[in-house]
């Protein structure tokens, strides 16, 4: 095989696989821009382009309230788990104390453990405590799981941070908290952003936890309301397409701007699904 043939084949395959990844997404977008009453069979270009399906899906699916609930849950989870992960990762990454390694393995356990293995008692305990059908029923478990990943991630970052930075702060008499806040956090912004982006995606996209914790009488997350909407409108292809896009959109939007963080995070060290 000559070099140029090899190149052509390689690029051809890359284009082919990219199309395979894109085709279903493009198909859905095309479908969603059809009029809700149009007859859509297979793939077709909308004529005329209209956002009517989005509007109808938005209203009938109750997405304005479910998106707000998802935003509250996701934001709280991201903020709390980030703060706690930075603190724990800082200790594991820079300090020596008895049992640190063993304790770190305890956190690693949560990285691989399928959280299905905790959901049953969580539900029954939360129901007793009146936490089901509240945002906290979702926030608390998802924060705890995110801490397992976050601690792992931040420890790796703090271990790689130049010792000279910390030693300089130490010579200046900074406390450990001062070193963290004034020196390491500004330096670690990219690593923290990667973690934030991943936790955001996982929490926003989560379905099983909210399915178990929320009955739907009170509040719904976006993925949950999408599934409820689907069971009501099984045959309305345009509406379902529009609703699917609405739910996936926030993460996709962030992905457009921060895709390097998504990829770097998933590629280097994440074991969560």
């Amino acid at each position, binding site marked *: 095989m000559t070099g140029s043939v090899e190149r052509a084949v390689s690029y051809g395959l890359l284009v082919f*696989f990219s199309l395979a990844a894109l085709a279903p997404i493009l198909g859905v977008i095309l479908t969603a821009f059809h009029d809700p009453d149009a007859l859509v069979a297979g793939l077709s270009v909308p004529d005329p382009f209209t956002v009517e399906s989005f509007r109808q899906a938005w209203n009938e699916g109750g997405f304005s309230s479910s998106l707000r609930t998802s935003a509250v849950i996701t934001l709280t989870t991201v903020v709390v788990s980030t703060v706690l992960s930075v*603190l724990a990762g800082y*200790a594991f990454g820079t300090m020596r104390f008895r049992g640190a390694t063993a304790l770190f393995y305890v956190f690693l356990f949560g990285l691989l453990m399928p959280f299905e*293995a905790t959901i049953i008692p969580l539900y029954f305990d939360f129901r007793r405590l009146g936490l089901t059908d509240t945002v906290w029923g979702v926030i608390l478990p998802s924060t*705890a799981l995110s801490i397992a990943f976050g601690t792992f991630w931040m420890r790796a970052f703090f271990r790689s941070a130049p010792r000279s930075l910390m030693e300089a702060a130490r010579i200046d008499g900074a406390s450990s908290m001062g070193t963290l806040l004034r020196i390491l956090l500004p330096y670690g912004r990219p690593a923290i952003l990667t973690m934030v982006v991943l936790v955001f995606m996982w929490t926003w996209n989560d379905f099983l936890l909210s399915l178990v914790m929320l009955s739907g009488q009170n509040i719904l997350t976006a993925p949950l309301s999408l599934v409820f909407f689907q069971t009501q409108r099984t045959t309305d292809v345009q509406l379902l397409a529009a609703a699917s896009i609405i739910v996936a959109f926030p*993460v996709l939007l962030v992905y457009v701007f921060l895709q390097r963080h998504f990829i770097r995070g998933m590629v280097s060290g994440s074991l969560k699904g």
Partner: protein
Amino acid sequence: MAAAATVGASPEAGIPRRRGDVGPPGEPRRIGYLYVLPGLLVYAAFVLVPFGHTFWISFHAWDGITPSTWVGLDNYRQVFTDPQVRETFTHALVLIVFYALVPLVLGLLLAALLSRMRVRGIGSFRAILFLPQVVALVSVGIVWRWILAPDGPLNEALRAIGLGSLARPWLGDFTWALPSVGLVGTWVMFGLAMVLLVAGVQKIPLSLYDAARVDGAGPVREFFVVTLPALRNEIVVVLVLTTTTALRSFDLVYVMTGGGPGTSTSVPSYRLYTAAFQTGEAGLGAAIGIVLAIAIFAIAFGITRLAERGDQ
């Protein structure tokens, strides 16, 4: 497991820990506990304790309402003998082929082709290939349900090219429903495998290939002698990520088939969900959860081990 988890976590690679800590002399070393404590409390309360509690429930017959009764290993016996529970693990193994092996093979194929060239515009390809990973799985499931529907785009396309006899209600077919769900898993996962493996292959020094070529290696030998060994870490990460996702698959099954037709696409997580929250068999659900966790740990550990052995 720890090894698997830290594979590829490049930030810390190769930096030896120094003795002595960072805090100023005035601060006790025990301050470390204070930093870990808040995270540990939350993590313990909502992950560790419930996990232990699941273990406890798995030895009971419990409908979630009335008091539970101790039944010893009965639930575990049911997991391994009841055909309707056991088959969910078989289905999960089938899904591993689609979620893990097919993406791995596709990724290695692409990596092998790209091993000797530096690709232009790799960034855009990477962003596109990775896209299926970030779309909410419920959206993915709904979209593919439409694609695979009796009058959906796939069947329309088959009819259009004269293969109408192949058209079928993919998700309503006892034979084809599980592979169809698996294929969606392939779609979600193949880009991740490619991104990881291609990134890995681009780090292999070209001199290794030149050396192999001087030794008279053809493209196939080159792949087995140079590319494959150099990609060991990436392969471990791909396999661990994809197999655990396959074993845990729930969202796609729930949205696309609801375990059907019959129970032909039921998977462990789905059976766990119905057992605990629909049919009043919380003990059975808990046992499925524990077995699933053990399976995931064993497979992740096994993959890591295999790779380490290949090292020597």
